[in-house]
């Protein structure tokens, strides 16, 4: 099976995964204790069962027996304990260590049971911590934590997953061969080759003439063209977790005023962005909680239908009068802002979105100038609060938690609240939502969070772009439950390929 990708992975060492593609490949090579199942619920992987104590602070995890690493060495609790110790040791410099700082200790209780002790309850323990890829202690434990980063493991990984790395030609192709010893039986497809092809027409050609079987990063335009040509390809629109929105710097005069933000929502034809621009490949957003998380998503929130007249009236009512230059002002506050968006020259859809926004805002008397900058500069600018409005997104995880984005103790550099948004009720919701384990009780907090987001509009939300995949007629899997993005190949072990 040949898969087309846009870029190469950095390293295949999960402790230092450097980009999206690292995660895609690591999903083939490694297993977590739990896996992400259909509907994003945790399902057994290397763990067969896991159970929390009453207070939620102690977890016992039962491990699967008879699992071997791709080099033939048996897997046991040592591997799990070592992996978590490595993740938590500061010397390792594991970038996500902060997300797991509530894990106090990890100890083996015999070869097939592991005990986790937590310093506080955390609702993300199952979906995030237990989902971490487990690494082979027999290979890595002899390397001190400080030197892990220099090890060649990222080039020669060994895992328990359905596939093993066969050959890696950097920036050209990565070949995986099935792990004959995979615990749930050898995968049906013998080899999976990821080819890096940047050019869009080359990708569509390869898909059309059967040289490639999967393209999960096709540009929207080519995707539409292929769909209209009625090829034999299966064109999948997969609902995604990742919201796109406009960050607002709430410390800027005007943007700090909720009335202005609401007027901007009324005055921005977001449906046009979602359905128009020749794309029609996104879900309309009523907030930043993904609709695909059906258990959590709550559409019963304040809505902002496109209504420029209402937007103008709202601004008039709040005292923002139209100036002779077509820009509204109130006292010294002039509603004129720069919209920053990243792009190294090829992000045309970001430019389209930005231009539409600019035109719509002009209509209601808000002046927007566009500022396309490279990604590193964009990050620096937003983290240092040197921006007005910024087009980006945040999230993409199968959980409604938005602590680092919305809590008032998460202003940069601590977290990603680059709006400087502050609402005590929101803080309370987020805190309780994260520490409550019972999904029914948790839901109440996140319902309130979604309501507050719609009331306060800390960001101008507009869409959840679909994840797109073109699949050749040779390839079969459970299309109904296809997962987006890096999760697409999560269950590749059960896919089949007709010759």
């Amino acid at each position, binding site marked *: 099976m040949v898969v087309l990708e846009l870029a190469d992975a950095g*390293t295949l060492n999960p402790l230092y995964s450097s980009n999206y593609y690292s995660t895609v490949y690591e999903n083939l090579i490694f297993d977590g204790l739990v896996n992400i199942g259909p509907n994003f619920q945790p399902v057994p992987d290397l763990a067969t069962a896991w159970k929390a104590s009453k207070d939620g602070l102690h977890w016992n995890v039962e491990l699967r027996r008879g699992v071997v690493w791709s080099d033939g060495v048996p897997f046991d609790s040592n591997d799990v304990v070592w992996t978590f110790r490595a993740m938590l040791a500061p010397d390792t410099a594991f*970038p996500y260590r902060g997300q797991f700082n509530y894990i106090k200790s990890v100890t083996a209780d015999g070869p097939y049971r592991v005990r986790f002790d937590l310093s506080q309850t955390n609702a993300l323990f199952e979906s995030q911590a237990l989902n971490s890829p487990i690494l082979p202690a027999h290979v890595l434990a002899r390397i001190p934590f400080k030197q892990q980063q220099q090890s060649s493991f990222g080039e020669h990984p060994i895992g328990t997953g359905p596939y093993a790395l066969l050959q890696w030609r950097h920036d050209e192709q990565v070949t995986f061969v099935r792990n004959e010893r995979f615990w749930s039986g050898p995968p049906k497809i013998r080899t999976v080759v990821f080819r890096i092809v940047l050019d869009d027409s080359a990708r569509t050609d390869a898909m059309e003439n059967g040289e490639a079987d999967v393209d999960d990063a096709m540009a929207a335009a080519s995707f539409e063209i292929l769909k209209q040509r009625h090829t034999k390809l299966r064109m999948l629109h997969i609902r995604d977790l990742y919201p796109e929105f406009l960050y607002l710097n709430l410390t800027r005069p005007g943007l700090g005023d909720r009335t202005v933000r609401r007027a901007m929502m009324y005055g921005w034809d977001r449906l046009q962005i979602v359905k128009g621009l020749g794309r029609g490949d996104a879900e309309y957003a009523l907030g930043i909680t993904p609709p695909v998380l059906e258990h959590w998503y709550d559409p019963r929130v304040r809505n902002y239908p496109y209504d420029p007249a209402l937007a103008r009236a709202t601004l008039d009512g709040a005292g923002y009068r139209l100036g002779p230059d077509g820009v509204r002002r109130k006292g010294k506050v002039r509603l004129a802002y720069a919209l920053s968006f990243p792009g190294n020259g090829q992000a045309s859809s970001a430019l389209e979105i930005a231009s539409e926004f600019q035109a719509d805002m002009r209509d209601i008397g808000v002046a927007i100038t566009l500022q396309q900058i490279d990604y590193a500069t964009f990050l620096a600018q937003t983290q240092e609060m040197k921006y007005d409005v910024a087009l980006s997104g945040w999230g993409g995880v199968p959980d409604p938690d938005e602590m680092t984005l919305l809590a008032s103790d998460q202003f940069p550099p601590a977290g990603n609240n680059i709006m400087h948004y502050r609402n005590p009720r929101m803080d309370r919701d987020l805190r309780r939502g994260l520490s409550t384990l019972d999904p029914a009780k948790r839901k109440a907090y996140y319902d309130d969070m979604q309501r507050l987001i719609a009331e306060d509009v800390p960001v101008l939300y507009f869409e959840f772009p679909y994840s797109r995949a073109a699949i050749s007629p040779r390839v079969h899997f459970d299309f109904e439950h296809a997962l987006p993005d890096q999760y697409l190949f999560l269950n590749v072990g059960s896919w089949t390929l007709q010759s």
Partner: protein
Amino acid sequence: MIVFIARRLLAAIPLLLLVSLISYGLMGLAPGGPTAIFQAQARQLSPAARAEFIHALGLDKPWYVQYAYWLGNLIFHGNLGNSFVDHRPVVTKIVEKMPVTLEMLSLALLCTIAIAIPIGIYSAVRRGSAFDYAATVLAFASYGMPVFWLSVILIDAFAVNLRLFPTSGIASVGHERDPLDRLYHLVLPVVALTIVSLASWIRYQRAAMLNVLGELYLRTARSKGLSERAVILRHALRNALLPTITLLGLSLPGLFGGAYFVEFIFSIPGMGFLGINAVFQRDYPTVMALTMLTAVLVVLGNLLADVAYGLADPRIAYD
């Protein structure tokens, strides 16, 4: 000669140090830190974690402290460091990408020479003719043409509209080992590189030839009754080629510079592609290694030009 080369190489050391210092400083002044470690992350990395990671890499120190570490590592351990993207030694990464770039550049250089030298000579011999004027206009047009613009135009015309050549990449899917397929992919990039470097070669060759044509020994040759063809090809050409040899060394850095644009636009996974991506991701070790490589090429190219000139022209002596 050996003394001359040694002296030039010694003089290059402070120059290279200065280049490295300025490059490192400029890089440090560029906004934003390394993004490679968290760009397009599947899982969002909190700014706090990012800060911690940057601390672990020593990137929170002032740029001149980082520079000192970098230089020390290079001088005392001969180590150019590891990439921030995949933690592999940057030398490995560069060596891996070198063959593609060298293949493309040598093809471009060969094409340039094969086209420019005859045109230059013919223009000089037929000075003032329609051909000469046409060649001059062509040369100036090509000289003013930015290679990135030309590349896009070529793609649009020959790949998108006429569908004669692939738009990008170095190989078709499934034909990664096919040398003909590789050549086919290299046509447009090589054409782009050739066109933009034609100008200087044509002008240079024309001037050199004109210089020689005024020499008295050509009059002697003619008065011996030699045919004009023999005069030009046997007597004038050999001498007129001398200055052009210099250009060979001097054009190396320009070619590598062009490779950055061309490889990026055509998505050819060579050193230039690596370099541009490294800049976007602020992968300092890779950027520095490539910058230093280019600086060394400039120094060596100049030296090569001088040495070649000396070897070819017995009138030039170095002491």
